[in-house]
């Protein structure tokens, strides 16, 4: 399939850019949306030179939740919206820093959820569309090492699940993506296990496939589904003493 209109929110992230490459290569018209949008001009030019077509840029601030409805109304309603907005934060420091915690919670949950809610309403009215939320395996169970980020992603996952339930049968499909570890700028400083770590391009390919096949919830590397399934099975009184 090609010729769809795609908007990618939080386009500066490596995962977002990998999605942009996949959809542009498939012949779709891509719009990149992010703060300081002028810094993505080189990326837009790169996409155009590689795949032909034109790539549009729109300024978007996920935390400006009052502005989301206007943002959606101001552009042509896309066929697919992908939200890759996110912020890992620094768990240990953020535990004692309310402002930083608020920023992580809002950037991973409130901003993305409300932006997609605005798209959901418009797509529901039209009777068609695909909504893709990049959530995280970190939301599958809260762990000491990243529960601020994880809890916000858990909220986002639940929100996407609810949207999917609401919009099923109304022509709008919702995809939840749980990438697992991805070798991106966000995780550059971490020592990640090779077998569980995907390249951004793998995430991009998985998102394109999920959109085309109408998948509901995807883990980019299948191993993650098993790993998180097991982690969720551990009884809380055991889990609380573990460090994983």
């Amino acid at each position, binding site marked *: 399939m090609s010729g769809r209109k795609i908007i990618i929110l939080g386009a500066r992230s490596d995962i977002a850019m990998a999605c942009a490459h996949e959809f542009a290569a498939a012949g779709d018209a891509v719009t990149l949306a992010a703060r300081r949008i002028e810094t993505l001009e080189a*990326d837009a030019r*790169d996409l155009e030179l*590689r795949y032909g077509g034109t790539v549009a840029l729109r300024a978007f601030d996920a935390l400006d939740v009052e502005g989301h409805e206007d943002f959606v109304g101001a552009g042509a309603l896309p066929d697919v919206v992908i939200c890759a907005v996110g912020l890992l934060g620094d768990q240990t420091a953020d535990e004692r820093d309310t402002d930083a915690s608020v920023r992580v919670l809002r950037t991973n949950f409130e901003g993305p959820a409300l932006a997609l809610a605005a798209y959901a309403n418009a797509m529901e009215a039209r009777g068609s569309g695909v909504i893709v939320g990049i959530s995280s395996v970190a939301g599958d169970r809260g762990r000491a090492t990243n529960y601020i980020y994880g809890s916000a992603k858990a909220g986002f996952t639940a929100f996407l699940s609810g949207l999917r339930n609401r919009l099923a049968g109304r022509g709008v499909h919702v995809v939840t993506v749980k990438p697992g570890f991805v070798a991106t700028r966000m995780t550059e400083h971490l020592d990640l296990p090779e077998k569980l770590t995907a390249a951004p391009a793998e995430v991009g390919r998985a998102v394109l496939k999920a959109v085309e096949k109408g998948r509901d919830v995807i883990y980019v590397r299948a191993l993650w589904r098993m790993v998180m399934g097991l982690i969720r099975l551990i009884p809380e009184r055991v889990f609380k003493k573990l460090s994983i």
Partner: protein
Amino acid sequence: MKRDVSGWGRYPRVTAEVARPRDEAALRGLLGDGPVIARGNGRSYGDSAAHPRCTVDMRGFSHFLDFDAETGVLTAEAGVILGDVIAALLPRGWFPPVTPGTKFVTLGGMIAADVHGKNHRRDGSIGRHVEWVEVMGPDGAVRRASPRDNSDQFGMTIGGMGLTGVILRCAIRMMPVASGWIRQETHVAPDLATAMEIFEAAETRYSVAWFDCLGQGASLGRSLVMLGDHAEVSDLPADRRAAPFDVPVRRRKRVPLDAPGFALNRYTIKAFNALYHAAHARRAGPSLVDWDSYFYPLDAVLDWNRIYGRRGFAQYQVVLPLAASRAGLTELLSAISEAGQGSFLAVLKRLGPEEGRHSFPMEGYTLALDFPVSRASLALLDRLDRITLAHGGRYYLAKDSRVPRAVLHQADGRMGAFRDKRAAAGLNVAFASAQSERLGL
């Protein structure tokens, strides 16, 4: 973060601090405290693109910047992958003027190694097709260099193995082609002399020979010589003419794990070579081959380097001057055949005249061979070194992982001049690879 870094041969392994800057400011921040080396997509074979103190992964610089559809000049960042260039520009009728045997190289790596292809005799190495490069020097300043302006820096950069600065951007003149197909003519050469005669008589743009390394006596140098040209639309079957750049998508396979050490021995290699030879000999004569299968037969098997097992492999590539080629190649092939250490890939190409200041090619024949790393094969390579030196041959740094320092400098007097020039400009303090330290460059 510290990582084990190695080249495509997976030998040697260097434990290196790897940085991945995304912009000039971040890259500049890595300079000035000691040697660094830029690394592209890790397709050089040995230790050219690794330094324990700071290996700079340049794949964060991967933007296409401009393409001029009139002149065919592509401007791009150094971390752009050649295969992506082909994917973007072949449908518009442009192909790289020079390509190595894999499309998974970066443009920066191609320029640093001044790579050659199967068309060196006609088209030279990649350096001939570079309009300009932009290079970050030891002071963090970025300068543009071309054959006309700042030509000294240009000459140092082409084939300079990243030891003269970090290549950031480049402009390369692409070559117009009429289709995505190659008109190939395969000749079966029963021996080395015949293979060389075919090369000398060839009028095609591309020529390459695949050897059966275990051939002995009269069949020493038994090979398939493959000549090729870009096909015109009129060469294509009628049903392909409407879309001359569409070629079938090749299924990719991946080598899933390291082969055990015993998987490669003279019998399995002999069997492989015999099968390969037979398969192609049956197709002797003219044929049409898509660009991907023609230029990059091994790219279809991802991670093919794992067939050599955990210890990795060494590639031995030398070029012998034209006058000494026949005798030198005969001695090299005899030594390999006697040792029974055949390699899967034995490739012979005819190179044209020397152009770069310290680039590998010179007028003559280049032989490339892979050997799984073992004490026996390394001993054989030392023996091959003596033959290479005796015939005035020289080494390809992008393939090397083991040549002794004295042998390199004896083989290639230009290396001393390169070292001295680096020292005089203070470049040796700012840029070094495990290879440059091993070889005293």
